[in-house]
């Protein structure tokens, strides 16, 4: 019969065999073999499993020198130190005060030392007037009992009180009084070999095979029982995996999409190449408005011109600009030019698509309420840098309903932003050219500990909705925000362009916040 053990266990077993006594103290043994205590005990457990070894526990009343005791073990007790000073000073006789000064001892310890010198009958004391003198009175000064006993601590600072002789126990009492030792009860493990362990010859023991990989052969043949599967450092970081992953921005977009859907909004999608008509004119932006200028808008050379919708609507919008039309407005008081409205451009906001939804409502004679949203790309003719993009993503939601109010808009917005994870929301007055009343939205961002502007909102002006037959008391609520602002808060990139130029390392490592 052979027994298979790990190499480490075999070595420890060999050492145990060498021990003469019936047992060995575990902590002493780990020191002796220079093996970590835990490694030793796990090997003993291995032996136990194979019925080769075991350990018992016993309570030990342990005595050890404290810090001061250890100091005296090295330098000698105060009385011995003082004696040596006196001997080397060649004074046969010395006043107590002079001796104190000569010794440079702490006063308290000095007197303890003098006391024991007297007890040991090394010195005599005489009083001459106020002056106390001491005199050495022996020829030789051999080691005292206490000093002899102290040497026992040199090998091992932990002595088992119960194993001491009566005389030694008395010395312990003295040391205890002198506050040089501490006593405590401790559990000690004693390693033993079982009867089998004592009998087994080393030749019967073989080293256990260690493998790093569990193979199919091992599993099916059952040989896995005879091998030792090498343990891994289980807290070590794993190798980066080459996996597929959704882009963090798309993940964020999908989260927001789900919020809209959960609130009963349907997603809409409209053209990116848009006419100035839907992008500006239908939003009651006068044709000389600075926002329409070249430096803000990508106008197109090809396609050059867009077709306008049915003439009735075009005429209504023309009238709205010029004199308010039937909207009740005084209008902008200028001559509206159809050719400017036909200009093509890359849409500067998704509100152009929202207007197309109003157009559809008008065409199909849809029933209210209508709740739609869009999360889509828009374009601004800007130079790219680390905080500016020429193309970005807008989030927008609208509600068309009878007698909806600013209070309904606040209700929706608070719900929406709460679902996005913002607890504190402020809705305050704002200004947007095509909404009235208008409202700004600020949210409290815990991580930065401050309020951040997080979107705009309002009711579409009558000048915007009347040309599409949406007339009081039917009104349109709208709100919107930029996705990138939110994304930069979540992903903390130094450069906003990173969101659209795909640093692969970032994509592989970024978490979905």
């Amino acid at each position, binding site marked *: 019969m052979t027994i298979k053990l790990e190499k480490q266990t075999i070595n420890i077993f060999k050492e145990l065999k060498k021990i003469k006594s019936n047992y060995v103290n575990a902590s002493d043994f780990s020191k002796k073999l220079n093996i970590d205590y835990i490694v030793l005990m796990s090997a003993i457990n291995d032996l136990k499993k194979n019925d080769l070894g075991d350990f018992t526990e016993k309570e030990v009343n342990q005595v050890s020198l404290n810090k001061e005791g250890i100091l005296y073990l090295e330098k000698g007790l105060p009385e011995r130190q003082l004696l040596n000073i006196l001997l080397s000073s060649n004074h046969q006789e010395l006043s107590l005060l002079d001796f104190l000064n000569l010794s440079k001892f702490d006063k308290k310890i000095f007197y303890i030392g003098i006391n024991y010198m007297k007890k040991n009958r090394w010195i005599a004391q005489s009083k001459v007037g106020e002056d106390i003198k001491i005199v050495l009175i022996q020829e030789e000064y051999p080691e005292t009992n206490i000093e002899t006993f102290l040497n026992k601590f040199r090998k091992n600072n932990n002595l088992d009180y119960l194993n001491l002789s009566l005389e030694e126990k008395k010395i312990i009492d003295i040391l205890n009084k002198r506050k040089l030792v501490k006593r405590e009860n401790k559990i000690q493990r004693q390693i033993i070999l079982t009867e089998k362990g004592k009998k087994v010859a080393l030749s019967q023991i073989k080293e256990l095979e260690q493998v790093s990989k569990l193979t199919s052969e091992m599993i099916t043949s059952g040989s896995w029982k005879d091998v030792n599967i090498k343990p891994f450092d289980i807290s070590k970081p794993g190798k980066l995996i080459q996996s*597929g992953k*959704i*882009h963090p921005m798309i993940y964020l977009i999908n989260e927001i*999409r789900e919020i*809209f*859907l959960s*609130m*009963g909004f*349907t*997603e809409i*999608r409209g*053209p*990116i*190449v848009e*006419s100035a008509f839907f992008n500006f004119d239908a939003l009651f932006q006068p044709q000389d408005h600075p926002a329409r200028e*070249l*430096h803000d808008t*990508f*106008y*197109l050379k090809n*396609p*050059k011109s*867009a077709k306008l919708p049915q003439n009735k609507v075009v005429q209504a919008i023309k009238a709205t600009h010029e004199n*308010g039309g039937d909207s009740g*407005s*005084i209008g902008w*008081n200028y001559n509206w030019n159809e050719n400017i409205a036909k200009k*093509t451009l*890359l849409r500067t906001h998704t509100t152009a698509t929202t207007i197309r939804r109003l157009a559809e409502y008008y065409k199909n004679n849809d029933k209210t*309420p209508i*709740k739609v949203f869009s999360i889509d790309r828009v374009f601004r*003719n*800007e*130079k790219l840098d680390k905080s500016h993009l*020429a*193309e970005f993503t807008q989030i927008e939601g609208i509600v068309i309903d009878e007698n*909806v*109010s*600013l*209070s*309904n808009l606040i*209700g929706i917005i*608070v719900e929406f932003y709460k679902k996005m994870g913002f607890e504190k929301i402020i809705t*305050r*007055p*704002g*200004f947007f050219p095509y909404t*009235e009343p208008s409202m700004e939205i600020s949210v409290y961002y815990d991580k930065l500990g401050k309020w951040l502007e997080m979107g705009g909102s309002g*009711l579409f*002006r*009558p*000048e915007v909705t009347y040309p599409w037959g949406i007339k009081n*008391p039917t*009104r349109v609520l709208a709100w919107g925000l930029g996705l990138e602002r939110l994304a930069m808060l979540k992903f903390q990139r130094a450069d906003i362009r990173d*969101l659209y*130029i*795909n*640093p*692969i390392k970032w*994509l592989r490592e970024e978490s979905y916040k």
Partner: protein
Amino acid sequence: MPTLELKIERLEKLVGKKLSIQDLQYDLQWISLDLEDINEEEQTVKVEYNPNRPDFSSPEGIARTLKGYYDLELGLPSFEVSSGNIQMYVESSVKTVRPYIVCAVVRDINLDEDEVATLMNIQEQLHWAVGRDRKKVAIGVHDLDKIEAPFRYLAIKPSSISFLPLQGDGSPMTLEDVLKYHEKGIKYAHILKDKELYPILLDKKDEVISFPPVINGILTTVTDDTKNLFLEITGTDLKAVNLALNILSTTLYDMGAKLETVQIVYDKQEKYTTPNLNPDKWEISTKYINDYLGLNLSIKEMIKSFEKIRMSANKSSKKDYLDILVPPFRGDIMHPVDFTEECAIGYGYFNLPKIIREGCIGEYHPIQKLANKIRTIMIGAGYIEVLNFILANTRRQYDLMKQEYHKQEVVEIANPISEEYNTTRTTILPKLMETLLFNRSEEKPIKIFEVGDIIKLDSKEDTGAKRELHLSVVSYHEEADYTEIKSTLDFLMNTLGCSDKIYIKINDNPTYLSGRSGDIYMEKNKIGEIGEIHPEVLLNFKLEFPVAALELDLTNFILK
């Protein structure tokens, strides 16, 4: 957005109330001002105001509204204007150049240092907020006592007169010279471009008061000794010039000066006087306002709200209607709806209820639904999703891909700010090649995909172009080849349940390696391309390993 720096101490004096920065931080937002910046040390704050409130361009203007917010002064602010006898004759020659002028006389000014600074600043602010950088409105402030009435506003030949402009070198200049050599002239010459005549303001002795919208004459320079001011505002929009004059003159009035009218005489007959500080009157339904706000305010509460925003409101002769008077410095009221917001601000946005209205069932957009389906399949196949701009560059889209530029299908941007983006993409693949170029030193394999839009010209669309959803996939590593990308396509088509409709015909496409590329067909339509990228294309993008790629038009997969 325009901004304005406010000294707390000065604002306190104007409002008549002790103000702390902390309180302002909270309070200002409710009258639609944004606190941009706080300087505790100097005790100043920087506020941002909305372009519909140019009357917020001075501390005086802000203080008026703030007094209402704090209940210190309610209703319409009053301004006294006495009638003067100064006349401004407008000649018909300005009609095609810069048709409008309005004026005011301001007497007994006694401005401290801060007020002088405000007077300078408010002109700047109004030039921007109302004047479209002087194009629509230009303001001139003059020392009245240096010139002699009556005045004339006319248009003359650019070289017919010389004068000493402000900030000149001391020598007389013609109007033509001003536009060519004077700093302000160079800056504003574009406003008078192609005009044969230039506008000019002259006094009785034909001394030049100003050359609007460019520069004043040195004659009327305002100094510490100036007692009386002459304000003239020229422009192309009568409403705008009046608004600028009203804001400027009411601000001076609030600084303690006295206002006096000027008579404007057009073509020697049509006369009117400015400044006209009479309020505009509107008749508004209380139900309309309550409905819009979702409130049920009593007439009394509503009147109080308007008074807080410094309008006056009284019961109208019509039942449940209010007569509302709008102060002359407000230029943003053009529809009854504008009063809904005024009422809400007066009532306090913070007092508005949150009312949720239920209803509607939300639905995915079929295209977004498909896009997400494709994404799920592609990440299962081990590809990382990337996102690129739809904006693109013609050279990288075509030349580097060895493709010919088909003008008839490509969007062309007329005014790109940089050549980096002069078109929109017609395929996604070149963007993925750029992504590989950008990441070429990263750990391989790099396997990426993008689901997104491309744009193609299409005369059937009313805007002349259509967007299509595409998928493009690339794999970049030492072992990348056709079989790998074909397996990816097979996996995709199997999972979509379309593999029986898909087949590939070998093609000869310069982007790909000949013999290792094909066109992907779905039934009779070509829907994409697949293959190993040509080494020349790889080198164009500085790539050192093979790339296997595909591009698919997803239009046919959309479930309707």
